[in-house]
C-alpha cells in the first residue's frame, strides 16, 4: 500500500492514469488520507460535480492485513449534498482487495466528456480503463450479473447505479460483499454523483495471486491481533448482541428511550416498533431459511449482517440495517419487514443512501403525496428514481431538496444531510454530533448513543444537556482516528469498555508500521483529521450558523418526554476548542 493511482478522466484523448509514491501522504490511510487529499487538492468553493472536485477512495491503515475487522473503506470528495467535505465509509470487500493490490488510494480527477462512461480494471498486472457504454443506466444488481459473466465472481466491484449516473445528490457507491452482491454502500453525501460526474460506472478489482500485507513485526502483530479478537468476542455487544440480531437490535431500545423518530420526527415512539425489531427480523430470517448472522467482508468476527429472504426462501436483500429499517419503517409509519427489505434492495439497486431516502419519503408523506404507512406508495416512489422521472429525481436528491420542493419546512437535516435514526430532543448528545459534524447530520461521526442510551463507556443522561459537548467531542475525535485505520466502527463498543482491547488495536498499528503510538497519539490523529475537515468547510463557506439543528428541534416538543433540544449555541461552538 505504498502507491497512489491517479486517473484524469477528462484528459484529452481519453482517461490518463499515473501511479505515484505516497509523498506528503505517507503514513495516512482511510479518512485521514481522503480528508487530507481533499483539503490539500480540492478548491473548497469548487463545484462538487465539476472538474475541480476529486473522488478519493482509500482503504484504512490496517486493511489488507490479517487484522480482524479491518475491511472498511473511505470515499472522500466535496459533497454535492452538503457542499462540504465528505468521507463516506463502507464495508464490503473493496478495502481488503485494494490494499492487497498495493494502493493507498485511487483518485479520480477531472471530468469525463458528457455521455462517456468507463470501467476501471485493476489486478496484479496493472490498470486498464475501458469504455463501458454497455453498462449505461444499469442498476447495481444487473451490472454485477453482467460483470460476473465476464470476470467471474471472485473480483470485487465498486459501482454506481442509475442514481449516480443521473448525478443525484443522495446517490451512493455500491461495494460488493463476500457473495459478490452489491449490498454495502458508501451511502452518505452523494458520493455516487461525483463518481458519475467522473464518468466511472464501475471499478473492478481482482486480488488473485496476491497475499496479505506483511507487518514490520509479524510476531507482535499476531499477538496483538489475537488479543484483539479475544476482546471483540468477549464483549457482550460485539460477541453476542450484534451477531445474533444485527444493528437492528436497536429498534426496541431506541423506541423504549422515546428517541425513535416516527412519521417525519413527529413523535419519539412507534407503535409498530416490535414488528420491525431486530428480534423479529432474526426470527423471520431463521424461519424462512435466510441467515441472521453474516459478515460484510473477509476478516469480520462480529458478523452483524444477515441475509433476508422472502416467504419462498428467495433472496430479497441483505438484512436491512437499523438505520434503513428506521428510515423506511418508523419514519414512514411502515411496520412491515418485507416492505422494508424490498426498499433496501431498491435503494441498493439504484444506488441510493437509505437514510436520505427514508427521510425524503417521510417528507413526501408529510406533504400528502402519499400517506404515512403507504407501503406500495413508498416502493413506487423509489421506483420513480429508477425510471428517472422528475418526481424520482426530487426524491433521489435527498430530504433537504424534497422538503423545499414539496413545501415542507420540517426537514430533519443539518448541512443538507438527513438525520439518522435518533431524535436529538430525546437523545441530546447525538444532537451535538448532528449539529457540529463536518459531515452534516451523521450518527457515526460521534456516536453518543453508546453512552447516552447503551451505557458503553459510562453514562451521560440523554435527556439533559450536561456533559453532551465533551461526550460528542471525544467521540468525534476517536471516530476520526478509527475511520483512518480501516476498522469497523462497531469495535468502539469493545474498546470503550475494555482498555486492553483498545491497547491491542494500538499495538497492531505499532507492530505493523514500526511506530510507537500511544492513546495520545491516536487522539492527535483524530484531531488532525477533524481540523483539516473543519478548515475545508470554513473555506467552503460554512460558519457557526451551519452548526445548528433546524429551528423546530428547539421549539417543538417531542412526545413522550416532551423535550426540545437544549444544548446552547455557545456550547455547540465549543466542540472543537482544543
Amino acid at each position, binding site marked *: 500500500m505504498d502507491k497512489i493511482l491517479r486517473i484524469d478522466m477528462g484528459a484529452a484523448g481519453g482517461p490518463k492514469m499515473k501511479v505515484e509514491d505516497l509523498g506528503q501522504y505517507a503514513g495516512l490511510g482511510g479518512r485521514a488520507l481522503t480528508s487530507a487529499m481533499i483539503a490539500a487538492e480540492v478548491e473548497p468553493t469548487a463545484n462538487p460535480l465539476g472538474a475541480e472536485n476529486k473522488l478519493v477512495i482509500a482503504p484504512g491503515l490496517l486493511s489488507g492485513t490479517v487484522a480482524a475487522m479491518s475491511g472498511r473503506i473511505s470515499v472522500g470528495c466535496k459533497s454535492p449534498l452538503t457542499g462540504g467535505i465528505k468521507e463516506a465509509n463502507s464495508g464490503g470487500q473493496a478495502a481488503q482487495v485494494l490494499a492487497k493490490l498495493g494502493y493507498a488510494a485511487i483518485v479520480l480527477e477531472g471530468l469525463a466528456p458528457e455521455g462517456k462512461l468507463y470501467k476501471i480494471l485493476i489486478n496484479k498486472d496493472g490498470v486498464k480503463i475501458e469504455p463501458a457504454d454497455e453498462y449505461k443506466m444499469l442498476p447495481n444488481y444487473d451490472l454485477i450479473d453482467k460483470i460476473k459473466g465476464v470476470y467471474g465472481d471472485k473480483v470485487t466491484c465498486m459501482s454506481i447505479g442509475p442514481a449516480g449516473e443521473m448525478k443525484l445528490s443522495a446517490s451512493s457507491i455500491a461495494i460488493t460483499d463476500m457473495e459478490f452482491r452489491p449490498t454495502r454502500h458508501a451511502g452518505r453525501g452523494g458520493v455516487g454523483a461525483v463518481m458519475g460526474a467522473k464518468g466511472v460506472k464501475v471499478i473492478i478489482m481482482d486480488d488473485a495471486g496476491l497475499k496479505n500485507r506483511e507487518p514490520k513485526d509479524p510476531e507482535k502483530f499476531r499477538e496483538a491481533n489475537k488479543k484483539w479478537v479475544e476482546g471483540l468476542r468477549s*464483549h*457482550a*455487544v*460485539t460477541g*453476542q*448482541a*450484534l451477531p*445474533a*440480531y*444485527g*444493528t*437492528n*437490535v*436497536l429498534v*426496541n*431500545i431506541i423506541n*423504549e*428511550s*422515546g428517541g425513535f423518530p416516527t412519521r417525519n420526527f413527529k413523535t419519539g*415512539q412507534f407503535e409498530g416498533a416490535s414488528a420491525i425489531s*431486530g*428480534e423479529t427480523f432474526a426470527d423471520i430470517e431463521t424461519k424462512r431459511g435466510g441467515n441472521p448472522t453474516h459478515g460484510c467482508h473477509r476478516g469480520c468476527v462480529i458478523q*452483524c449482517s444477515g441475509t433476508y429472504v422472502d416467504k419462498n426462501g428467495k433472496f430479497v436483500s441483505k438484512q436491512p*440495517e*437499523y*438505520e434503513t429499517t428506521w428510515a423506511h419503517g418508523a419514519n414512514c409509519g411502515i411496520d412491515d419487514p418485507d416492505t422494508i427489505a424490498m426498499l433496501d434492495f431498491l435503494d441498493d439497486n439504484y444506488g441510493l443512501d437509505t437514510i436520505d431516502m427514508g427521510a425524503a419519503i417521510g417528507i413526501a408523506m408529510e406533504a400528502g403525496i402519499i400517506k404515512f404507512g403507504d407501503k406500495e406508495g413508498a416502493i413506487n416512489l423509489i421506483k420513480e428514481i429508477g425510471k428517472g422521472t422528475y418526481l424520482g429525481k426530487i426524491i433521489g436528491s435527498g430530504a433537504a431538496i424534497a422538503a423545499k420542493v414539496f413545501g415542507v419546512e420540517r426537514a430533519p437535516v443539518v448541512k443538507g444531510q438527513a438525520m439518522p435514526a435518533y431524535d436529538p430532543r430525546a437523545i441530546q448528545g447525538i444532537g451535538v454530533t448532528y449539529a457540529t459534524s463536518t459531515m452534516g447530520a451523521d*450518527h*457515526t461521526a460521534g*456516536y453518543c*448513543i*453508546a453512552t447516552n*442510551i*447503551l*451505557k*458503553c463507556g459510562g*453514562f451521560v*443522561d*440523554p*435527556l439533559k444537556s450536561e456533559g453532551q459537548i465533551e461526550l460528542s467531542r471525544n467521540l468525534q475525535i476517536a471516530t476520526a482516528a478509527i475511520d483512518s485505520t480501516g476498522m469497523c*466502527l*462497531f469495535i468502539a*463498543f469493545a474498546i470503550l469498555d475494555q482498555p486492553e482491547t483498545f491497547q491491542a488495536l494500538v499495538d497492531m498499528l505499532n507492530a505493523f508500521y514500526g511506530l510507537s503510538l500511544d492513546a495520545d497519539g491516536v487522539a492527535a490523529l483524530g484531531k488532525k483529521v477533524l481540523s483539516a475537515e473543519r478548515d475545508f468547510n470554513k473555506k467552503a463557506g460554512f460558519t457557526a450558523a451551519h452548526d445548528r439543528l433546524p429551528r423546530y428541534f428547539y421549539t417543538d416538543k417531542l412526545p*413522550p*418526554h416532551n423535550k426540545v433540544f437544549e444544548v446552547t449555541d455557545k456550547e455547540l461552538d465549543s466542540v472543537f476548542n482544543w
Partner: protein
Amino acid sequence: MKAKIKLFATLRNGRFDVAEMDLAEGTTILNITEQLEIEKKDAAILFINGVHAELDSLIREGDDVAIFPPVGGG
C-alpha cells in the same frame, strides 16, 4: 400492584416478551431480575416509563419496565 415487565433480545430466551406482573409494594428491578434468574451483568440497560433506571429503582403501580441485555448497533 400491577406493572408491565418487558424483556428484550437474549433475555427473552426461555422467558417471555411481555408480562403483566402482580408485585408487592417496594419491589425493585433487582427483585424482578432475581425472580427471573437474570444475572446482573445481563440486565445492562433498564428503563422505567422510557427513562433510564437502575437495578435498585423502585417499581410503582402501572409502571412500564424494560430490561435489555448489553446491545449496540447503529
